[in-house]
């Protein structure tokens, strides 16, 4: 059965599939039929306890009824509410987000998209302000313009205000004025040309990383052309992708494609897929099977084609997050139900960061992502030095975290889980020792 967007709708679908009347289901979970009717139309929220009762009555796992594909929209709406802070009165009804999404999916989606765009714009402004402040080209050009303007102003004032100026001084100042006016005009033109080029480079409001990731998402994270024996040159593939408009995004794409090609050569698709079918998506076993490093296996699992045959473990069900030594997310392939922040830092308890603190130590964990109904994920994390290392600079590390649905391992459903979140700002977990700022959802979650 396809999963509908919202909990209430899912309960209704499951009830009808089992041939139950509203009154029967309502009785078995201990609510009135009219209340169930409100729930099924997403007009009332379903608390954890009640959701468990519904799940038992309908013979399904609670996560089957919980939010799924709409997580991103809901996260976007929460982020929008959080950003509004106290500026909006009355405040957004956080406890009725699902009802809003259920009744007005188009408007809710628009608001979430608008929120994402606002966040992107804010980051662009920050980036541009940073450029203005630190770009040596702009700083130098402005200094040149101000110096010329200062000379013009002083010289022109002398010519305008001095009646008895000697002819040789007058001639000299006229020549100076002319020279400075030319310098001003040329300097201004050069600055405009530079800023125009910078604006063209920016290609809208996406950061280079977003531009690259959007392009990769459109390929489904699987680059079939590079799997062939006679693969095209990565440079040619980047040139053929007009959506990679900025130099920086092309550089990111090229780096990714080159690594993808190396991984594909080391772990050819057909035997790798066969091994995944046989051994399951266990990076450790796969790495041993192929004599390959864990990072390459992580990337291959996240780059598998999908969706495949029913029951087949494919790339669409595998997420991957990569961060640098500073913790900044440098690669994001999302998986449903595990929100990855677009900007700012992620959740400090993610095994990704545990791996960063313990390089070359493989970490396997079950992570419980905070949500109305917590969802579990099987997570593998690993950190290793970035090659080539040298003796003349600090060691640089890269950490990776592979995300799989909990069903990928038999023990994941009951194993102790790491209580994680999407990032402090929109995380509801109280008393988390890793919290760095208060949650904006404390009351409305």
């Amino acid at each position, binding site marked *: 059965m396809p999963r509908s967007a919202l909990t209430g709708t899912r309960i209704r679908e499951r009830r009808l599939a089992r041939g139950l009347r509203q009154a029967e289901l309502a009785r078995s979970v201990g609510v009135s039929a009219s209340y169930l009717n409100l729930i099924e139309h997403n007009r009332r929220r379903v608390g954890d306890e009640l959701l468990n009762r519904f799940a038992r009555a309908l013979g399904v796992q609670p996560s089957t009824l919980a939010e799924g594909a709409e997580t991103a929209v809901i996260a976007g709406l929460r982020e929008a509410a959080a950003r509004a802070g106290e500026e909006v009165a009355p405040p957004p009804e956080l406890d009725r987000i699902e009802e809003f999404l259920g009744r007005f999916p188009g408007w809710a989606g628009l608001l979430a998209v608008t929120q994402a765009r606002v966040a992107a714009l804010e980051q662009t402004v920050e980036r541009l302000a940073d450029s203005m402040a630190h770009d040596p080209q702009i700083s130098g050009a402005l200094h040149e313009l101000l110096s010329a*303007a*200062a*000379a013009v102003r*002083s*010289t022109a004032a*002398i010519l305008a*205000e*001095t009646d008895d100026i000697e002819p040789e001084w007058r001639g000299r100042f006229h020549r*100076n004025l002319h020279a400075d006016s030319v310098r001003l005009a040329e300097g201004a033109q050069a600055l405009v040309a530079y800023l125009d080029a910078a604006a063209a480079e920016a290609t809208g409001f996406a950061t280079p990383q977003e531009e690259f990731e959007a392009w990769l998402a459109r390929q489904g994270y699987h680059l079939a052309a590079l799997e062939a024996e006679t693969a095209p040159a990565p440079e040619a593939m980047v040139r053929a992708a007009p959506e990679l408009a900025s130099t920086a995004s092309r550089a990111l794409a090229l780096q990714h494609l080159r690594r993808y090609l190396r991984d594909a050569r080391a772990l050819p698709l057909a035997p790798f897929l066969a091994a995944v079918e046989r051994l399951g998506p266990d990076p450790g076993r796969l790495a041993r099977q192929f004599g390959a490093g864990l990072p390459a296996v992580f990337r291959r699992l996240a780059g598998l084609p999908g969706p495949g045959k029913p029951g087949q473990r494919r790339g669409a069900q595998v997420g991957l997050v990569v961060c640098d030594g500073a913790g900044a997310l440098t690669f994001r392939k999302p998986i449903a139900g595990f929100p990855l922040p677009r900007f700012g830092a992620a959740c400090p308890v993610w095994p990704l960061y545990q791996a960063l603190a313990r390089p070359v130590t493989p970490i396997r964990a079950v992570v419980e992502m905070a949500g109305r109904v917590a969802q579990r994920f099987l997570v593998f994390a690993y950190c290793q030095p970035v090659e080539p290392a040298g003796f003349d600079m600090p060691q640089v590390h890269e950490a990776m975290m592979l995300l799989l649905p909990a069903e990928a391992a038999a023990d994941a459903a009951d194993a102790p889980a790491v209580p994680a979140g999407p990032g402090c700002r929109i995380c509801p977990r109280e008393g988390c020792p890793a919290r760095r700022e208060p949650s904006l959802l404390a009351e409305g979650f």
Partner: protein
Amino acid sequence: MGRRVLVIEDEPNIVAAISFILSRDGWSVESHADGQDALEVIRRVAPDVLILDVMLPGRSGYDILHDLRADPATAALPVLLLTAKGQPRDREQAERCGASRFMAKPFANTEVLASVRALAGG
């Protein structure tokens, strides 16, 4: 009241304008365009007032000013600092480095003249 001004500025047209204004007011004006050997020139000229640009080739005006204040012979020399940056934080930095006065480009001639007169009188 002293009558000798040294202008350390690498923009020749600015130097020409300042020299003209001050010489008309009775000042003897000398100029120098490089930061590297500016301290030696200052010690040799021994001006009553120094007009010092911040962005100089060779060495910044801030560094020169710092050394001037560290040397008892020049610690009290009145210095008018010229800069292309006029933000409050630039003004604060100028004060921290020991500038007697601070002026952002482009400046008015009358301001320069009034500042030099005031510094020489102080």
